[in-house]
């Protein structure tokens, strides 16, 4: 096991997140079959009170998942000089089989927790808790994923063997490698750029339309989800290349390093916020027919739409800036 303050912090935090999500899940198991708002029984009142605690705990989990995602990558990045061949988190995460699954699960958990907080917010603003069953079913899933996540993380930290010769991001994301990452990095830049910009214009246009008319929530959500994934692929394919100004460097992690002014943080944070808000609009739309939510949800969607616009616009600006203003030209390589 690798003893390092950041690793210890991530493990302790991860265990606390499991406890919090586990408590939420326990409450969920109690609530799902017994919830009856019309009843004034002591049990019902106790459950109602406990939902506040569950909301607070899950709010904490959400904050932790989001922050710890970056801390996890940053710690992996920090440890790169312990491994022969690793030059950033890309190499450190391949040291054993747990690294990338842990990262992917962390991303998934961060997105799910973000969506849960949105549902919870809508639910607590209605007097009759209309989404309580949806909410606590989701908590059960989040709790299970949190346990899996800490399991994978423990596996990763415990099996860090500094003798392993790993690869640097130059070979992992090099276009000659027959791996998924290599294939994604190998996508033709012109084609990927065209799809990326068309999707960016599409999703921003759709968001503007939704902002004005309040229609097309489902389409906006699908487009946001699509753009979220496409943006991650585009970072591998060309955005990172323009930021590094190196035609062969496709690494999504080096962006977070000091050498590049920590530009990866605003880039990824804006993408996550925009993506979660966009998907949240579609998710909330499914519940807008519920009587007590007919006013709440459009208000929330309106605000979320503004968040989508700001998030994706910021992401687009950071991505486009080096393409327009640097001397580097990728086309032709």
């Amino acid at each position, binding site marked *: 096991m690798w*003893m390092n303050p950041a690793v210890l*912090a991530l493990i302790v*935090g991860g265990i606390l997140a499991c406890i919090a999500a586990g408590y939420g899940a326990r409450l969920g198991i109690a609530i799902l079959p017994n919830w009856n708002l019309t009843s004034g029984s002591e049990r019902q009142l106790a459950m109602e009170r406990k939902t*506040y605690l569950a909301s607070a*705990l899950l709010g904490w989990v959400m904050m932790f998942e989001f922050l710890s995602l970056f*801390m996890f990558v940053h710690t992996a990045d920090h440890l790169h000089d312990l491994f022969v061949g690793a030059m950033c988190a890309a190499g450190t995460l391949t040291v054993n089989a747990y690294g990338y699954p842990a990262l992917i699960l962390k991303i998934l958990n961060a997105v799910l927790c973000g969506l849960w907080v949105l549902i919870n917010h809508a639910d607590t603003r209605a007097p009759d808790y209309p989404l309580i069953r949806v909410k606590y079913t989701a908590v059960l899933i989040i709790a299970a994923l949190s346990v899996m996540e800490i399991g994978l993380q423990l596996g990763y930290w415990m099996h860090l063997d500094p003798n392993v010769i790993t690869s640097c991001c130059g070979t992992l994301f090099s276009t000659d490698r027959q791996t998924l990452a290599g294939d994604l990095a190998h996508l033709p830049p012109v084609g990927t750029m065209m799809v990326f910009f068309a999707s960016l214009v599409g999703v921003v246009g759709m968001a503007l339309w939704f902002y004005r008319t309040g229609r097309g929530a489902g389409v906006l959500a699908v487009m946001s989800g699509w753009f979220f994934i496409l943006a991650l692929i585009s970072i591998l394919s060309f955005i990172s290349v323009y930021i590094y100004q190196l035609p062969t460097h496709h690494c999504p992690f080096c962006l977070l390093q000091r050498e590049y002014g920590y530009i990866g943080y605003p880039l990824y944070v804006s993408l996550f916020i925009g993506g979660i808000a966009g998907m949240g609009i579609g998710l909330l739309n499914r519940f807008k027919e519920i009587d007590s939510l007919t006013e709440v949800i459009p208000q929330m969607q309106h605000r979320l739409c503004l968040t989508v616009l700001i998030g994706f616009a910021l992401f687009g600006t950071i991505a486009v800036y080096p393409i327009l203003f640097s001397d580097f030209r990728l086309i032709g390589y």
Partner: protein
Amino acid sequence: MKWIQRQKYFLDFTLSSLLRRKGKHLSLLVVYTLIVFLLGSVMLFAGAVRKTAVDVLTDGPEMTVQRIIAGRHDFIPLQYIEPIQKIRGVRTVRPRLWGYHFHPASGANYTLMAAPDFEYGPDQVIVGAGVVRSWSGIAEDRLYLVGFDGRAHLLKIVETLDSGVDLAAADLILMSASTFRDITGVPEGYAADLAVEIRNPRECATIAEKVVRLFPETRPILKSEILRTYAAVFDWRSGYVVVLLAGSVLAFFIFAWDRAVGLSAEERGEIGVLRAVGWDVSDILILKWWEGGVVSLTAFFLGMIGAYFHVFLASAPLFAHALKGWAVLYPELHLYPDPNPYEIGALFFLTVVPFGFVTLIPAWKAAVTDPVSVMR
């Protein structure tokens, strides 16, 4: 905008309520700050020493070749230089003469080294700042040394090295090659090791293999390996110090939990009144959240600033020994501030994040208190 305004009111209320009960919160703040200070010092110190070690080694040779006889480091014949020089990719091979000298009076080990282009004459030396500081019986810039054969050598100090490069140079005594051989008895035609400069650092591993094939009794040491070892050592040590401090950190969290659970009658009354005048449970939770946030961030910043002063201005007197190792003669280490988000983030995750967690349940318990029963 309405949301921000609302939070501002909450913050305003929180601050006035905290100030009303200064005594209670002050003790928590002091302990919290101390915990952040301790953990922060460990992390900043380990990070800064690691960086200093990397800086010192940056200018070093890519590879050092040592000769090993029966598992012990032995002097390497100078005839080995030419075959190594001929390996493709090797830029230069330089013999190095260095060794240790134990000085019984000061009880310390000094590093003797022959500088390649030593500009001063025989029996003249350049010394590190630590040598001047620790050498007992130093008289009129002269060092008195007993050589390998029992003969006494009187060396004249002509220059003292700047303490900026202290970690490596504190115990250093630089001299000419002939003086070195004279004192230590290393025969002509031998060196302590060979420093190999390599054109392309990526070829280091291959060149190391070729060196071992040519001279199986040698051991090539790569700069990248030394750097990796340093990184591992300081990372590990700081981790273990954090584990050792875990008991106090846990005690602090229990203390914080206890504090948050044990509300005074006055506080209960206050929450009861707030509930009675129409505050919702979630409003009280937000209030408590702000309360924890204000205490946490104040302690975090105070502790962090304290740790910064402790490590970078006072050279970490509390931890230096545990983390860097110890010796009679140890460099006076002046670390250079290199704040980076990694250390600050790790510290935040070790302190503020768990604090937020342990105060949640007590905050909820306080928030769901029945106003009627409290006010009765």
